[in-house]
């Protein structure tokens, strides 16, 4: 696999200049480090800030300037603070252009499971994930193609509890970029050095390769 290709960089290329973007906690946050030259994205964090900036310099952090992952952040020129009702009005009302989320499972029909394994002893916790998938114009999933145990995450039907039905637009895995279409998963691009069959073998649903994209 070509070390120069990474899915964060690849995803960032698909975000138009001036987009309002919500990056999920964890891996999706790394997209912010790969903004293409000449583009500006405005980051929304659902706990009440538009115009979120990177982590603060040492000694300059504010415990009440945090992101949805409760990590300390900064703000950019043009930032605005607002309450939770307004923040989720942005989300639910379709004002955000893009949400990038992690996944436990994505189904061929766009169903997403990313909040609970449904295990008996799990503490259920959902945060803003269900609001994001219900409201944001496009939902990108950023995930490893399989779990640590080698189980495929791209499946025919999700077995974990859903976050939303038919909500995922596109998946950026370590192996490929895959669209969710009316005909199911459709290959957009393979990571350099990755063969299609290698991806298909690690995916529990057919991936079509002849999908015409706009």
């Amino acid at each position, binding site marked *: 696999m070509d070390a120069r290709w990474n899915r964060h960089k690849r995803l960032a290329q698909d975000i138009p200049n001036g987009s309002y973007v919500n990056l999920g906690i964890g891996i999706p946050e790394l997209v912010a480090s790969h903004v293409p030259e000449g583009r500006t994205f405005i980051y929304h964090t659902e706990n009440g800030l*538009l115009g979120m900036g990177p982590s603060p310099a040492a000694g300059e952090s504010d415990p009440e300037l945090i992101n949805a992952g409760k990590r300390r952040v900064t703000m950019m*020129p*043009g930032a605005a603070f607002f309450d939770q009702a*307004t923040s*989720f009005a942005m989300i639910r009302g379709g*004002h955000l252009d893009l949400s990038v989320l992690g996944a436990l499972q994505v189904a061929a029909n766009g169903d997403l499971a990313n909040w609970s394994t449904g295990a008996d002893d799990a503490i259920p916790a959902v945060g803003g994930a269900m609001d994001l998938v219900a409201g944001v114009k496009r939902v990108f999933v950023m995930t490893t193609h399989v779990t640590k145990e080698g189980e495929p995450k791209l499946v025919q039907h999700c077995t974990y509890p859903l976050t939303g039905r038919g909500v995922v637009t596109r998946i950026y895995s370590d192996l490929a970029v895959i669209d969710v279409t009316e005909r199911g998963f459709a290959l957009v691009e393979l990571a350099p050095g990755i063969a299609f069959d290698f991806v298909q073998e690690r995916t529990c649903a057919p991936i079509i390769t002849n999908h015409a994209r706009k």
Partner: protein
Amino acid sequence: MIDKRVGSTREAVADIFDGATVMIGGFGEAGSPIELIHALIDQGAKGLTVVSNNTGTGLVGLAALLRAERVSKVICSFPKTAGSTVFPDLYRAGKIELELVPQGTLAERIRAGGAGIVAFYTPTAVGTPLAEGKESRVFGNREHVLEYGIRADFTLIKGCKADTHGNVLYHRTARNFAPMMATAATVTIVQAADVVEAGALDPEAIVTPGIFVDRVVHVASPALESALNEAGASYP
């Protein structure tokens, strides 16, 4: 680099199409975006549905848009302010449709439209003619009426200060419907007397965050309905 400024009110309203739904801020003259409305008159779009609390006074601004017969329907709470003659004449002549909505329900329907809330139950208007024909339901021994969110194609509002990202501040009671209307349209257009660079406004004090705004046009000395009417103005 994000810059939502457009060069003129003309450019700002250029794509408003025949039959569009247009929300227009203002309560009386406070917050009425007169220059944007006049640009819309010049632009010529017709068959509009206008969502606005009032219907304008004299022969300028919103009243002038109605008088030019560009508006087929208004969604409004109070269309008969003192000094309002254009709307009453058109209404009595059967030339304009009126959907009368209680002011708070109007505000909440616009907010709902912008917030992705498709419908809500409110106690307002139960038992009155304005609830007739509407679905109602009893919650906790009290009757409520089902009201629907409203969305528009365009919103025209007046801020006192805006930045290049579209963050907006308002002047006193000129705020009124603008913050909700900004959220509820496909394209939100703000005229502001002062337009500054991103970073010049206090992030804690911003009333309308830029995500809700598409175009900002600088109108340095906005006219007031009352001053125009005292001067006997009419538009065009």
